[in-house]
């Protein structure tokens, strides 16, 4: 039997909104430690890794490890049925082929049940090695979202270059070129509003704008985004999900053109 209760059901709604563009379906692996999801997008260039720790839930029970293959579009439809202040309970039997979502209004006057069919999904778990990234950029998530949106108007790919001076986002295309430079914030009052760069080595990598834009769908989850980069390894874009966990997006860099 699996049961997880989350007072802030809106969190899960935001999580789904953050992944449903990249993934059509995915498997939620439920264990004693919490709920995990790992999946690649259809083109296999990006990977979504979601972790919701069991202690972040208001009530969590998982007797046996459970893998729930879920059509994320369908699940999002169900989540949209919940009011923002509803309390969510996810329930599933051990070998069930359905999962139950229950929404309770805060005053307990309205209770809605949604049962959803599970799917058989071929799982391909990738091992993500521990990496010491040569550059780690912490910045306001809204800022990152804005930069991605702005730069994607100029070109299909975006160059992120991190140096001592700061971080530079640039794109070039038919219209012209665009450069956005962010310097490290000098006086840090609130960490969320600051740009913090931890750099061992300068890095310059190129990524597909559209994917970065998809990642920024997670902006409502957290005020801060952490970008981790090293030469020739995928970029990590991480958003904290309140006190409950985090969502990480991995994006493989573009293959550098020989000419440029």
């Amino acid at each position, binding site marked *: 039997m699996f049961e997880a209760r989350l007072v802030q059901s809106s969190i899960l709604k935001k999580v789904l909104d953050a992944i449903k563009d990249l993934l059509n379906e995915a498997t939620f692996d439920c264990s004693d430690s919490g709920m995990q999801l790992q999946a690649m997008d259809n*083109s296999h260039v990006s990977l979504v890794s979601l972790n919701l720790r069991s202690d972040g839930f208001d009530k969590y029970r998982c007797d046996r490890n459970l893998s729930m293959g879920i059509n994320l579009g369908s699940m999002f439809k169900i989540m949209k049925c919940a009011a923002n202040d509803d309390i969510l309970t996810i329930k599933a039997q051990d070998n069930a082929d359905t999962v139950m979502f229950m929404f309770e209004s805060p005053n307990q006057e309205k209770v809605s049940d949604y049962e959803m069919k599970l799917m058989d999904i071929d799982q391909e778990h990738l091992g993500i090695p521990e990496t010491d990234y040569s550059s780690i950029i912490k910045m306001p998530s809204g800022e990152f979202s804005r930069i991605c949106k702005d730069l994607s108007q100029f070109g299909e790919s975006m160059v992120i270059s991190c140096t001592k001076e700061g971080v530079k986002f640039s794109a070039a295309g038919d219209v012209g070129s665009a450069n956005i430079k962010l310097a490290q914030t000098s006086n840090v009052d609130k960490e969320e509003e600051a740009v913090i760069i931890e750099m061992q080595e300068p890095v310059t990598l190129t990524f597909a704008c559209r994917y970065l834009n998809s990642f920024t769908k997670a902006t409502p989850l957290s005020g801060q985004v952490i970008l981790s980069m090293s030469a020739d390894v995928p970029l990590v874009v991480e958003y904290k999900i309140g006190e409950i966990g985090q969502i990480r997006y991995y994006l493989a860099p573009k293959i550098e053109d020989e000419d440029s």
Partner: protein
Amino acid sequence: MSKRNKQDAKEGAKKRRSTISKRRVVIFKSELLSPDSEENPTFVQIRHPSSGNGATFLFSGDNKKVLEVMQFSDSKRSYFIDDSVSSDGDTYFCTPMDPLFLALPYLMKTKRCCPLDQTLADEEFPEVERLVHCTMDVSLIADRRGDESLNAFIYNEEKTLLWLQTKLERLIAVLKEKNINTSKTVAVSANFVKTDDDEDSGVNYMRYAYGMILDYIPESLATKFAEFIKLPPEPEKSNKRKEIVSPSQPNGKKSKVEEEEDSYEPKTPAAKQDKKTPSAKEQALAKAAKGTKSISSFFKKK
């Protein structure tokens, strides 16, 4: 219709029947004809028990015996018959068969108890009524109800399966006696020494005999019969070779078959996914992915 008989030492009697339009060469044993009967044997069209379509059978003059007619076609052959040539080179072999096989589908079809002459009636093939006069013990496949003079029967599946099993056992005995090769491979090398303790041979004989009986029973009965005699399921195609080669190198072959199976399995779900036409959004995302390395080239599968 002129008819001439000529004794053939080897094959019993060779009988040549000639009609005004066409003459055919038919071979069957002369003793199967009832010599006392004044009636000539007749070819009739009745329903074949296996296919359900019409087929030609030869009934003896007194309708006591039924002979199955097998046609061997050869377009390049003609016969000299006395002083003339018959361009029809086909040979018809008539072999006796158990009329119960012919009656079986009718009994199966008639759910309730019914006199035999009513059961064995077919609008399409009216000649089937001849079966009523055949020498056969209907009680082997059906239960007699009421008075004997009524000649009424109701189909009994259990009895039928037992009867078929007896047939099967007899067939196997004959196959073994005649040393007929029943293994999957028809070609057997000259130096092939058949061993009696071959485990598979029993099953092979059974399967071979079952296949022969299968030609004479309705399809619905075939599966029930296979279950009844506990016929092991036919090995998979991919295993066929394994079956032959296995005694010499069982492990090597087996692992290969397993590998093949493994490599095939994941393909099916992937193929299913391909069927879905991607939405415009997905297409745009796929387009954006161009020129980007695959993420799985960085992260190894667990």
